[in-house]
C-alpha cells in the first residue's frame, strides 16, 4: 500500500519534475480498486521523498473480479491486498507515474536520462522465496538490497516469519528504470496477480522490461511468474525476448523446478521434472550412456508395451489426468477404442483440449476416442465397462488406504476388464532422489508410497479376490538395491 522514493540528488526536489507531481501538493487518483494518494513527506534540496499511498477498498476490489475467479472464497474478502505492495500497487504506479515510467519530462528533457541516487522503500512486500529472492531479482539490476523479513505474529514467535519483507533498495539509477523494474518485479515477487491475464500482458511486460529484462539472468523465471505460468503466453513472451536478445528460443526456456505449479494440475512436481532430473543425474554417472529418457516417458512406453503384449486394443485410462497417455494411445493405430476418466474437472478440461474432444457433443458410434468423462474410481460406473484393458497409471497412490478396497471392487470386480495395468512409485527407490527428504513422498497428494513387497501384497490380494493373475514389470533403470523407480503390475484374467 505504500511506496516511498527518496533521492538525495543535489536539487533533490527535481524528483517532482521527474514524477510529474508537485512536491507541495497532495494528489489523489481514483483507481478501480481504491484511491492512490501521492504526497511528499520530505521535500528539501538535500532530500526529497515521494510517497505513493494506495488506499485499497476491499469491497471495490472484490467487485473488480468476476465470480468465476479462482477463489470465490473468504480469501478475497479478508486479505493482505490493502496493506501489501502487490500488483495493485504496480497498477497504481503505472497509472499515476505513466509519464515518468516512459522516461519523458517535457519541462526538463535532460533529467530522465540521468541516473540519480535513489532509495526505494516498500514496508510490506510479499516476497515468495524470501529475502534471498528479492536480492536475486534486484541485485543484478544494480541495486543494493536490504530485505528484512516481517514476523508473522509477534505474539506467536514459533510461527516464524511472514512472506513479507520490508524492502529497501538503494542505488544510482534512472528513475524510469527504477519504476519499470518495480512495476514488473512487484507482482513477480508476490507471484499472484489481481486481474486476469490478457494477451496484452505480453506487450506490457516487453515495454516495461525494455533495457533491463532481456539481460537479466533470471529473465526466464521473471517472465514465467509475471505471466503466471500461462504456457501459451510464456512461450510468446520468451520468443519475443529471444528476438530482442538475439538468442535461440530454447535458451530462454530453462527447466526450473521451482516454477512448476504444485497444485495447478495433476502433474507431479517431484515425479515430473525433479525425478527426471534425478534420473538424468543417475544416468550421468555412466558417461557412455546416451541422455536418459525421462521416467514419465518410460512409464508410458512400459504401459503401451504391456497393452500390446496382452492384445488389448480397447483401453480406458482410469485417472487420465490431463490426457498424456490418452494422446499416446490415439497416436498409435494399434488401439481401436480409447476412453479416459478423471475425477478432477480441471485435469479433464486439459485432456479435452489436448485431444480436441468436445464433451458436450453427442458420442459417435465407432469413434476411436469413445469418451473422456468425469468419474470417480470409488463409484461403480457402467461407463468403465466394455474395454479390453484399464490403466491406472500413478493413480492408486492418490487414494486413501481405507478406500483402496472400494477402488479394487469397482475396477476389478465391477468393470472387470480382461487386463488391468497398474503403475505406482517404488518407495524403496526414493533414497536415490537427492532432493527428497528421508521418508518424504514424491508428491504432496500421495497418500502412501509402496515398497515392492507392499505393492505385491496388495496386488496378490486383489488378484486372488477378483480372479486375476498378476505379473510385475520394473519401469525405469533397475537399481540392484532399491529396484526401479516405478513398479508396474499387469493383471490378467
Amino acid at each position: 500500500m505504500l511506496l516511498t522514493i527518496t533521492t538525495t540528488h543535489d536539487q533533490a526536489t527535481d524528483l517532482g519534475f521527474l514524477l510529474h507531481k508537485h512536491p507541495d501538493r497532495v494528489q489523489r487518483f481514483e483507481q478501480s480498486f481504491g484511491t492512490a494518494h501521492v504526497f511528499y513527506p520530505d521535500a528539501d534540496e538535500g532530500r526529497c521523498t515521494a510517497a505513493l499511498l494506495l488506499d485499497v477498498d476491499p469491497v471495490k476490489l472484490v467487485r473488480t473480479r468476476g465470480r468465476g475467479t479462482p477463489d470465490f472464497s473468504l480469501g478475497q474478502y479478508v486479505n493482505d491486498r490493502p496493506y501489501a505492495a502487490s500488483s495493485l500497487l504496480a497498477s497504481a504506479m503505472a497509472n499515476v507515474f505513466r509519464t515518468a515510467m516512459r522516461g519523458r519530462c517535457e519541462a526538463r528533457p535532460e533529467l530522465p536520462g540521468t541516473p540519480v541516487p535513489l532509495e526505494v522503500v516498500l514496508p510490506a512486500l510479499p516476497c515468495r522465496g524470501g529475502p534471498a529472492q528479492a536480492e536475486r531479482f534486484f541485485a543484478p539490476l544494480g541495486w543494493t538490497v536490504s530485505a528484512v523479513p516481517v514476523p508473522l505474529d509477534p505474539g506467536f514467535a514459533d510461527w516464524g516469519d511472514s512472506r513479507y519483507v520490508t524492502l529497501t533498495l538503494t542505488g544510482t539509477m534512472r528513475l524510469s528504470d527504477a519504476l519499470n523494474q518495480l512495476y514488473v518485479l512487484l507482482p513477480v515477487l508476490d507471484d499472484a496477480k489481481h486481474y486476469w491475464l490478457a494477451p496484452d500482458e505480453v506487450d506490457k511486460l516487453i515495454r516495461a522490461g525494455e533495457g533491463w529484462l532481456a539481460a537479466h539472468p533470471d529473465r526466464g523465471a521473471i517472465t514465467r511468474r509475471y505471466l503466471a505460468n500461462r504456457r501459451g503466453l510464456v512461450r510468446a513472451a520468451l520468443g519475443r525476448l529471444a528476438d530482442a536478445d538475439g538468442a535461440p528460443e530454447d535458451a530462454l526456456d530453462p527447466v526450473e523446478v521451482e516454477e512448476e505449479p504444485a497444485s495447478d494440475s495433476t502433474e507431479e512436481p517431484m515425479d515430473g521434472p525433479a525425478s527426471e532430473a534425478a534420473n538424468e543425474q543417475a544416468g550421468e554417472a555412466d558417461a557412455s550412456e546416451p541422455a536418459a529418457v525421462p521416467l514419465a516417458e518410460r512409464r508410458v512406453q512400459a504401459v503401451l508395451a504391456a497393452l500390446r503384449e496382452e492384445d488389448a486394443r480397447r483401453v480406458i485410462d482410469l485417472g487420465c489426468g490431463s490426457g498424456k497417455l490418452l494422446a499416446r494411445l490415439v497416436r498409435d493405430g494399434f488401439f481401436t477404442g480409447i476412453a479416459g476418466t478423471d475425477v478432477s474437472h480441471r485435469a479433464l478440461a486439459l485432456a479435452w483440449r489436448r485431444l480436441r474432444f468436445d464433451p458436450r457433443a453427442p458420442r459417435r458410434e465407432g469413434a476411436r476416442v469413445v469418451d473422456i468423462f468425469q468419474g470417480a474410481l470409488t463409484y461403480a460406473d457402467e461407463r468403465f465397462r466394455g474395454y479390453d484393458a484399464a490403466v491406472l497409471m500413478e493413480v492408486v497412490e492418490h487414494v486413501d488406504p481405507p478406500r483402496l478396497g472400494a477402488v479394487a471392487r469397482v475396477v476389478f470386480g465391477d468393470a472387470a476388464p480382461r487386463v488391468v495395468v497398474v503403475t505406482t512409485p517404488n518407495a524403496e527407490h526414493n533414497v536415490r532422489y537427492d532432493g527428497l527428504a528421508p521418508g518424504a513422498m514424491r508428491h504432496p497428494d500421495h497418500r502412501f508410497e509402496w515398497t515392492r513387497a507392499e505393492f505385491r501384497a496388495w496386488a496378490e490380494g486383489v488378484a486372488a479376490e477378483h480372479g486375476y493373475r498378476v505379473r510385475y514389470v520394473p519401469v525405469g533403470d533397475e537399481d540392484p538395491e532399491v529396484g526401479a523407480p516405478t513398479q508396474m503390475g499387469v493383471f490378467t484374467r
Partner: protein
Amino acid sequence: MTTEIRVPEMGLVVLVGVSGSGKSHFARKHFAPTQVISSDFCRGIVSDDENDQSATGDAFDLLHYIVAKRLRRGLLTVVDATNVQSHARQSLLRIAKEHDVLSVAIVLDVPERVAAERNATRPDRDFGAHVIPRQRRELRRGLRSLGREFRRAYVLTGTEEIDAATVVREKAWNDRRELTGPFDIVGDVHGCRAELEDLLRDLGYEIDRDAAGRAVGATHPGGRTAVFVGDLVDRGPDSPGVLRLVMGMVAAGDALCVSGNHEAKLVRALRGRKVRTTHGLAESLEQLGAEDEGFRAAALAFMDGLISHYVLDGGRLVVAHAGLKEDYHGRASGRVRSFALYGDTTGETDEYGLPVRYPWARDYRGKAMVVYGHTPVPAPEWINNTICLDTGAVFGGRLTALRYPERELASVPARKVWYEPVRPLASPGAAAGGAGGHRELDVLKIEDVLANGGVETRLMGRVTVREENALAALEVMSRFAADPRWLVYLPPTMAPAATSALPGHLEHPAEALAAYRDRGAVTRVVCEQKHMGSRAVVTVCRDAAVAAARFGVEDGTTGAVVTRTGRPFFRDPATTAELLDRVRAAIGAAGLWDELDTGWLVLDCELLPWSAKAMDLVRTQYAATGAAARAALPMAAGALGRAAERGLDLGGLRERVERRASNAARFRDAYARYCRPVDGLSGIQLAPFQVLAGEGRAWATARDHDWHMEVAARLADCDPGGLLRRTEWTTADLASPESEAAVTAWWERLTADGGEGMVVKPLGPLPDDARVQPGVKCRGREYLRIIYGPDYTEPEHLDRLRGRSLGRKRSLAMREHALGVEALDRLAAGEPLWRVHQAVFAVLALESEPVDPRL
C-alpha cells in the same frame, strides 16, 4: 355366446382386425383412454393427418416408444392397430418380452361387408376397395399362429360376439400385494424337518399332527404367515416330511411358498424326465419312493404349482428363491422365472465347480425389501435392503427366519451335518451373491450421486442437485472424504440473522429473535453459545464388533471424526482413535448406550481450538494480513505525519490511516484468541451440542434442544480428562421482553471479549412452514472482523455491508437441513449405505453452490 376375455393387470393387449372391424370402438368400451394407443393417433401426432399413410413408419416408431415406456412402468397397454401382419405383431411382442410382461391378442373378425360399410361412412377413409380383402387374407393366415405368439388369443367372430364380449382384469399370480403380513420368512429347509419344526415352534407356531404324529400344518395364534423361500427338498433327511408340513400350511392359508430350483428339478424327475440325480436329488427320490402314490401325486402337484416369486405388502416385500432384481418384480417371463430360481449366473464356475453368480444384490436400488435363499451364507447380511436367509441348515449350519416387518432374525441350529457341503460353509467363499462367491460389501454406484434427479426428503420433498455441483462434490468426496460407511452425516450451513440496523453492528440478537417471533409458529427458542472452532461430526461405536456389524467396517476402527466437508479431522488415525476412546468412555459413564438403546451414536460437535484445524488458513490468510498491516500502516502513518509537519493538507488521510492501524490490531486480537498450540489431543476440546442419531432413532428431530444440551452437559461431566467441553446455552420466551433483554445481555457478555456469538433455534420441532429457518446465527462484533475484514466497522464499509442479501443462504440452509435430517432418518432406520450416502453427498454438492462465504 358371451366370451369372457381375461387380460393381465400389467401387460400388453394387442387388438387385431381389419380396418373398420371396430377396434377403436371396442377399445373405448373396455379400456381407459390413456391405456389405448392407436396407430391413427400416432399418425396424427407425427403428421397432423390420421390417414397420412406416408407417416406410417414414424407413427409406428412413436407407437412402439410409447408402448415400451408404459410397459416399463408396469402399465396395462392396449394397441389399437390392424396388426394383421405377423411382423407388426412380432415387434410388439418383442417389446412385451423385453419388459417381461404377458401379452394377449384379441381378434375382431367381422365380415368384409361390415367393415366396408363402416369405412364408407367415414369420408376420411377413402383407400381402395382392395385393401380390406387383403387385410382379411393376412388376418386369416395369421390366426393359426396367434396361439403360439401370445400367452392367450381370443377370436371374436361377428359383431354379435364382439358386442357381447366382456373383459376382466386378472391379477398376476405373483401379485399378492394385498397380503400385509406380518410374515415369518423361512430360508432353505432342504429336508430338515426337525429343524423346521424347531424353528416354527420358536416363532410361536402351533404344529398340527396327523394320527401318525406327522406334522401336517402349523398355525400362528397371532395371525402370522410363514413364507418359504423354496428349496424345501433334497439333501436332507426328510423331504417328504417338510413337504407334508408346508403343503398343509399353504393349503390352510398359514403359509406361502415360492419355488426353489430343487423343486423345479424334482418335478422334472418325478415326471420321468432324464435328470442327473446330483445335489441331493437322489435322497429325495428315495424318500418319496417310500411314500404312497397319493402323497407323491399331491407333492408333485404342489411343487409344480409353485410360482417363482411373490410381491407382498403393497409392493414393499418381494420373496424369490434366488432373489430378484427390481426390473423383474411383479413381472412374468421365462427369464424372470429363471432369475428367481437360479439367480443371475455369469456362466462361469468357481474353483469348486459351482456357478459364479452375478452380484445383483450389490446393484440393487429398489424400494422393496427382497428376501431370498439359494446360496448358503455364514450369517444373514443386509445388502441394499436385500437379505439371504440360507444359512446352510442341511450343511450343519442354522435354519433362519426373518420376521417381517420387524426385520428381526430368528434361527435354530442344525441337529447335525446332514449333507457334506461341496465347499466349506464357513469360508469367506461361501457368502451371498458375491462375484467369485466372496463376501460382498456395499458398492456405491455413480448413479447414486450423479444425474439422479435429486434426493427425496421427508421435510422438503425432492431436493435437486445441479450437475455441476454434483461433479464438484464428486471430486472432493472421492479424493478427500472419509470412508462413506463412516460419513453418515454432513452438517448443513446456517444463515445469519437479518442484518442489524444498530450503529456499529451487523448482527444483533434483536433480529435473531424477531426472525422467529414474527413467523408466529415458534414460541420458545434455544440460544447456544457458538464456539469458534471447527465443526466436527463424531460417529462412535461401542466396540469394534458394532462397527463391523452395523457399519460393515472390519479394520478395527470404531468410528470417525469428520469435518464439515467430510474429511477426516485428524491426519493421524491414532489421534482419531484416542478421541473416540474418550468420547466412548464418556457415553458409557453417562449411561447413554442403555438409555438410548444403541451401540453407536453420531454427535454434532465443535472442535476447539480453531487453530487445530485451521492453522494453515490462520497463517496464510489471517496472520499474514495482520503482519502486512503491522508493517505497512505505521510506516504510512509516519510518512503522513512528516507531510503534515510540512504543512500539507492531507484531508483526513492521516487520521484514517491511524484508525486503520487500530482496526488491524483488533483484527489481530480477534484471530489470536482462537489460536493455541495443540499436540495430538492435548490442547483439543470437543463441545458436543446435539445427539444426531443412534440405532433406530434420529434423535436430532426426536428431541427438543434442551434435551440435547443436557445430554451434552452430562457427557462433558463424565469426561474427567477435560476433552469434552460444555456449551453455554439458555432459552428464550419470544413473547417476553424480559427474556429478550436477558438473552441480549447474555450475548453481549459472550461476545464482548471476542466470542463468536450464538446460534438461535426453535426449541422444539421445526414448524411446518418453509420460511422458518432451522437455526440462525448471531455473531459478535469483534469476531466479524475475521469475516468482513479489519475495517468493516468503519461507517462507509458497514453501510454498504448492510445491503448484504441473505436469500440464497437461507434457501441453501433449508435445503441442506432437509438433506441432513433425511440422511439421519435413513441411517437410523438401517437403510442401505447408498441411500444414506446419497443424502450426505447432496449436502456436499449444495455446499459448492456459490453463496457469499461471509454469511
